């Protein structure tokens, strides 16, 4: 087979349909980038879940001097703490737990609220370790099974509050999920457009080359030989689109994740290069599948032997 001919035909094809090709490449590029971002957000959500899920899921805050809830009467007593601890230890839902004193709580508080801004440090400099609460951090056997222990502890004397981390993180998960599905929905629309453009590109290319194709059929060129330039043409477009999407995602990883988020914000585990490579892999597979399938269909339709 004269591969030179096939490649030169592909090149002329791409050049002739330059506006078509650019439109196709851009649509593939943008839609795949959005899919990739959706995948990254998905990994991020998984990572966050695992990060926070690896931590203890339920925190029981003891009363301190300032607590004003019903179950508190000033600082929690040793007897109350003992009762609370035995309640926790007796619960079948609990996997493990540990106690956190005021000093450690203050460290965490500063890490979360004060790390970003030096001026904020001054604003909150009025808070001391003594304002913190002692707490039990409980890891559950099944993160979904928290109702029993929560109910039991909520009525215990000396307990200021029972915090289920999942509740606190709900809005964060909500926004991450919303953005993920938003990106995927927009990408879905664009992928439909991309598939149709693949079909149109082939239709147009078949029209532009109708004389050649007519003669090829006439003199007995094989089906494969006739459709190869079309296949390669869309394959090249898809590859460029995938490459651009990969470049965009890697740039995002480098600039935003590694350049800005990872160094400054340590309260969550961020997606890493490996996640982005996985996303790029998925995007590449999707991009190739979604251009090859319509190409094969369309060449069958427009290049009947």
């Amino acid at each position: 087979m004269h591969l030179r001919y096939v490649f030169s035909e592909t090149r002329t094809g791409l050049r002739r349909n330059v506006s078509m090709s650019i439109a196709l490449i851009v649509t593939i590029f943008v839609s795949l980038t959005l899919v990739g971002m959706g995948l990254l957000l998905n990994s991020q959500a998984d990572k966050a879940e695992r990060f926070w899920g690896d931590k203890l899921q339920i925190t029981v805050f003891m009363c301190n001097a300032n607590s004003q809830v019903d179950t508190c009467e000033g600082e929690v007593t040793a007897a109350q703490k003992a009762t609370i601890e035995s309640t926790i230890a007796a619960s079948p839902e609990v996997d493990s737990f540990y106690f956190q004193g005021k000093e450690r709580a203050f460290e965490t508080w500063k890490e979360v609220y004060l790390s970003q801004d030096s001026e904020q440090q001054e604003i909150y400099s009025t808070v001391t370790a003594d304002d913190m609460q002692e707490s039990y951090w409980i890891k559950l056997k099944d993160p979904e099974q928290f109702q029993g222990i929560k109910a039991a502890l909520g009525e215990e004397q000396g307990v200021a509050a029972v915090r289920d981390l999942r509740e606190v993180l709900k809005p964060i998960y909500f926004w991450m999920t919303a953005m993920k599905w938003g990106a995927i929905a927009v990408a879905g629309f664009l992928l439909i457009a991309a598939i149709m453009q693949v079909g149109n590109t082939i239709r147009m290319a078949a029209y532009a080359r109708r004389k050649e194709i007519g003669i090829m059929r006439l003199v007995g060129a094989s089906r494969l030989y006739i459709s190869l330039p079309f296949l390669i043409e869309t394959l090249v477009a898809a590859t460029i689109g995938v490459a651009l999407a990969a470049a965009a995602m890697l740039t995002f990883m480098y600039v935003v994740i590694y350049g800005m988020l990872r160094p400054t914000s340590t309260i969550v585990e961020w997606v890493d290069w490996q996640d982005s490579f996985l996303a790029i892999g998925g995007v590449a597979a999707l991009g190739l599948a979604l251009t090859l399938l319509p190409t094969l269909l369309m060449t069958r339709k427009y290049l009947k032997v």
Partner: protein
Amino acid sequence: MIRFESVTAIYPGHTARALDDVDVLVDEGEFVFLVGESGSGKSTFLRLVLREMKAARGKVYVAGKDVGRLRWGVPKHRRRVGTVFQDFRLLPTKTVAQNVAFALQVIGKPRAQIQQLVPETLELVGLSGMGQRLPDELSGGEQQRVAIARAFVNRPQILIADEPTGNLDPHTSDEIMGLLDRINRTGTTVLMATHDVGVVDQMRKRVVELDGGRVVRDQLRGVYGHSY
């Protein structure tokens, strides 16, 4: 070489029969004119030979093969049949030599063979020295020679021509007919649809006349028609 066995052809979406129960046998090396009024089915006949369409009923054998049964073998079948049309169908951006070479390239012939066959065939059709010209630098007759060269360069067993002189003036037509005759003498079966009276009357070859899709006359050394 070509055998039609009670062939009926119907275009998809139509009910009228373009060919209606046609039986024709063309032997190897014959020269056959297909004549008949417009719409009588001449082009349909040629399309069946080329396997551009399938017979609705009956069988078409070409070179011993039932072409209606071919599927993946269609390209290979077409390599045994050269085709020439009224409108030349040359690629305007390729030179004469490139146009002829194209037919060999796309069926995967090796370069060496192409470089030998193309000039040889151009000389045969009387275009030696014109290989580097573009089609629209040629006269209609010369363009048709290029088309014939392209059809013949792969040395097909059969040459099909659908009104090859339809766009040519009488003098040029004669020259083209001479060329087809010469090709026929190499042993190639030639099947030519035409309504050019002068050409048919002058050649005195076998004439198959169609009318409304039926064979109404099959005459050795015939003329165009009774009334002319």
